[in-house]
């Protein structure tokens, strides 16, 4: 069984690596050099928009996974870090004329500091209380930003235009690879074991010597830094930001759904979830009048995933489970429905 699972996992990783390589090379066909060689153009505006968005959600769901999946704290307001990162970069670029490359570095820093500040009081809460409190913070921050004049108030901030689909795709993809690499690394270190212990039993974690406050706040700050970095890239990519486009509440739902769908607590689960779900969302969006139903669809998907596939779809590929009627029945029984 475990040998077979290992084989499946290796094949899966091989296929994923192949797809990733193709996706990473495809955009290069849009360069002038490639075109002058007469290579077929494999990407267009839409391709870049979708691919960069997918990469962005890989970052968001992987980052959420660190606090939500590994540490077990159901953060429901991580979009706050995305917005804080976006505003940090945008403010530096637009108002202080700092070069984008340097302004981008401020995004993870400010987001992490913000996470530490709110994490110290909020991470004392558990379960629903923590979820509601973080959701409240994300809504509150958006309101504050909307009313602070130096941040553009309700007019938002315009950044100097940088026209390069290629640059933003690779920048977001690099951020995504960083987020996945960080997750992979965390799960193999003492730090990661500490987070898992807190998720499984916080009291037991404390009495075997884990500084639970420090670990929780660090996980929250790490998640915030990655989320903030994605926000910083987004700000320059999108050129215009305001409270609406960098603090959308539905991002909170989406990043959680992606991680849970793919397999929360694992390094690759959020990636699989983000790619799968974003594909579904794009399909919904192109469905004309069906687009209205996409929110309903997402809600139903979240509910069914949590009930029937609590460990995510990654678990069927070289994990411990096989997709059978019995598996679904057991999952249903465990939720106590």
């Amino acid at each position, binding site marked *: 069984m475990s040998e077979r699972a290992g084989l499946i996992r290796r094949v899966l990783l091989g296929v994923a690596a192949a797809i990733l390589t193709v996706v990473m090379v495809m955009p290069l066909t849009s360069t002038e050099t490639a075109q002058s060689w007469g290579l077929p153009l494999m990407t267009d505006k839409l391709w870049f928009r979708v691919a960069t968005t997918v990469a962005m959600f890989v970052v968001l769901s992987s980052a959420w996974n660190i606090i939500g999946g590994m540490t077990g704290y159901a953060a429901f307001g991580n979009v706050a870090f995305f917005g804080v990162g976006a505003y940090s970069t945008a403010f530096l670029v637009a108002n202080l004329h700092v070069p984008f490359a340097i302004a981008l570095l401020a995004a993870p820093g400010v987001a992490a500091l913000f996470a530490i500040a709110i994490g110290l009081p909020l991470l004392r809460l558990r379960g629903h209380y923590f979820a509601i409190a973080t959701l409240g913070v994300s809504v509150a921050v958006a309101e504050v930003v909307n009313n602070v004049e130096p941040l553009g108030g309700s007019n938002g901030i315009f950044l100097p235009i940088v026209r390069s689909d290629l640059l933003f795709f690779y920048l977001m993809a690099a951020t995504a690879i960083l987020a996945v690499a960080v997750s992979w690394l965390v799960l193999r270190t003492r730090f990661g074991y500490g987070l898992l212990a807190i998720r499984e039993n916080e009291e037991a974690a404390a*009495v075997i010597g884990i500084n639970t406050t420090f670990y929780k706040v660090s996980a929250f700050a790490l998640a915030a830094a990655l989320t903030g970095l994605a926000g910083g890239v987004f700000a320059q990519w999108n050129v215009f930001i305001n409270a609406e486009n960098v603090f959308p509440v539905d991002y909170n739902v989406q990043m959680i759904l992606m991680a849970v769908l793919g397999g929360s607590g694992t390094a690759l689960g959020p990636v699989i979830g983000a790619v799968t779900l974003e594909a579904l969302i794009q399909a919904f969006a192109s469905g004309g009048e069906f687009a209205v139903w996409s929110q309903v669809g997402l809600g139903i998907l979240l509910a069914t995933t949590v009930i029937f596939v609590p460990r995510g779809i990654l678990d069927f590929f070289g994990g411990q489970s096989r997709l059978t009627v019995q598996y679904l029945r057991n999952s249903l029984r465990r939720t106590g429905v």
Partner: protein
Amino acid sequence: MSTQLALAGVTKNFGGVAALSDVSFDVQAGEILGLIGPNGAGKTTLLNCISGVYRLDAGTITLADQELQGRPAFQIARLGIGRTFQVVKPFPSMTVRQNAAMGAMFGREGKRTPPKQAMEEADAVLADIGLGKRADVLVTSLTIPERKRLEVARALAMRPIVLLLDEVMAGLTPNEVDEALEVIREVNGRGVTIVLIEHVMRVVVGVCQRAVVLHQGRVLVQGATAEVLEDDRVIEAYLGERYAKAHRRG
């Protein structure tokens, strides 16, 4: 013998209820001390106070020359207090080996133990405690007695100076109790001081040199185990006044 753990005037209230009032006793280095008393006497509360799960309202707890009261639980653990829980608290998604390794990884002062080394040390502890063959299975497939052993293994992997055991024998068959007694004697033989809460009197008589009896949050009697168990006040606390009188006449 020298004092390893000293409790002086330990007091803990929950709202208006005094769970522990002015509890004072010493634990000698290398001994096995029994902490007994009827249900609700405050035994588990006392363990929670020592291990830092609860904060004291008054009093001091001293390990060697370090004061423990007011410190967070993780620091107390690293200073050398290992404990088990009455209702076991394993990390369910981890294997038996990983569970035990957590103690080695985090529960020691100073040098950090990396995961790989902690896993190796966990194997050694699990072998000692008779769980060696179960190292690779998930905790969820362990029996209750095995889970209790795992609690002890995880605490032992911390290399504690004092080990606090909260009813590790409850629910075990007589054979399993004998095995567990062996484990406790062995651990103690390596120089670990043990404080154990126990309702199974055979265990208390079997391994504890001394016993402290708690009753309604106060120390009722303390001393050599045999004498303590013969004390009329103890019999009365456990069995009620009428039985105690009958016992005296008989």
